[in-house]
């Protein structure tokens, strides 16, 4: 099947099996390899992308449900408003081995768009579906503390 979608602000036309995973479409067809496959079973959050602005697991979204969708991946967050959050994330030690990083950045940015000054509890709840195997959560939390207006 053929589908039209907008990925990181750019209109694209893709074609393939209706039950292909969005994760594979991004990585294999669109060369957006920033999105990582972790478990491939919806448990780890590494493959999180924004689908029409909401964080979802791209390993669980079939092509047939992507028609006319707007997708934002970690590559799309490297510029614009989200850039300063990415820099804070790096500076605060939020990145260790890096496998979970793209998914955490995407989920974190979705949280910040809804709630620019989340509490520690709100960050924990939002990131409950993103596993960091290095258990580097402290560094990740610090990235939220250095924002404008926070203590």
């Amino acid at each position, binding site marked *: *099947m053929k589908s039209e979608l907008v990925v990181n602000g750019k209109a694209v036309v893709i074609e393939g*099996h*209706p*039950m*292909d*995973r969005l994760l594979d479409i991004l990585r294999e067809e669109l060369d957006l390899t920033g999105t990582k496959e972790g478990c491939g*079973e*919806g*448990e780890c*959050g590494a493959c*999180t992308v924004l*689908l029409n602005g*909401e*964080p*979802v*697991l791209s*390993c*669980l*979204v*079939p092509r*047939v*449900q992507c*028609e006319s969708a707007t997708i934002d991946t970690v590559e799309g967050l490297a510029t614009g408003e989200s850039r300063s959050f990415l820099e804070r994330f790096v500076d605060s030690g939020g990145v260790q081995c890096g496998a979970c990083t793209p998914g955490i950045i995407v*989920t974190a940015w*979705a949280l910040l768009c809804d709630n620019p000054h989340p509490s520690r509890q709100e960050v924990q*709840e*939002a990131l*409950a*579906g*993103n*596993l960091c195997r290095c258990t580097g959560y402290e560094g990740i939390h610090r990235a939220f503390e250095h924002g404008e207006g926070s203590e």
Partner: protein
Amino acid sequence: MRAFAPKSLEETLLRLAEHPDLRPLAGCTDLMVSEPEDRRGLPGVLDLQSVPELRGIEWRGGSLEIGAVTPFSEIRDSPEVQQSFPVLAEAASKIGGWQIQNRASLGGNMANASPAGDSLPALLVLEAQVVLLGPEGRRTVPYGEFHRGYRETALGPGEIIGWVQLPKPPEGATQLFRKVGTREAQAISKVVVALLASVSDGQISEYRLAAGSVAETPVRLTEVEEAMVGQSARAAVADQAGHLAAQAVRPIDDVRSTAEYRRFVLAQVVRRMTLQLVA
């Protein structure tokens, strides 16, 4: 593979009448975990997510109607659900994590029919009605009769879940939900429990208890319910409720837990919920 993404209920039913073997799709959070050859080998798929009639939360004729493909994030955040059906709002907030709640739907949880489905015990104690749509028209099934066996449901060929209807619960009833998994979020339940109960004039007047991951389907624990109604509301009944609950179920050993642990945890959860009720 045939793939349809209808934009109306009329078109949906037409497709199903033409091709009763189409696999209906909602949030896909369980289906996509299957092996690639299994999901690619389906005879065809029918995406229900863009059917407006199957999505949304609305009071209609004294019941709150929830469309089958309404995601748990909407159910979790719905003021109507939070106010009148807190047991379901709580269940919705404990399913998977944020990403899963944005996709997984109430109807999908029901049709998928896992004994561990977290919303299912809540629907049982709320005595939901399920409206099924198919080639023969529309029929309403009490949710208590929807699960027929392990992963077997009342859905016939070419039939889909349209809406869930939640009747207004008894005024002032206590509604409690508890999920026990390996971690707080993103874990499939070892045991999941829902209670809807009332105390009036010092007596337990209503006691509806349901659990998941303790039998081949989510179940109402009627033995416990019958024993509790009419009892005076004192702490001693909580021990009895927990004890009876552990006896009433048939849990199994599997990758997530053991039958023994499930029985033990179920008894503790039911005991604590009952204590909270009579406190």
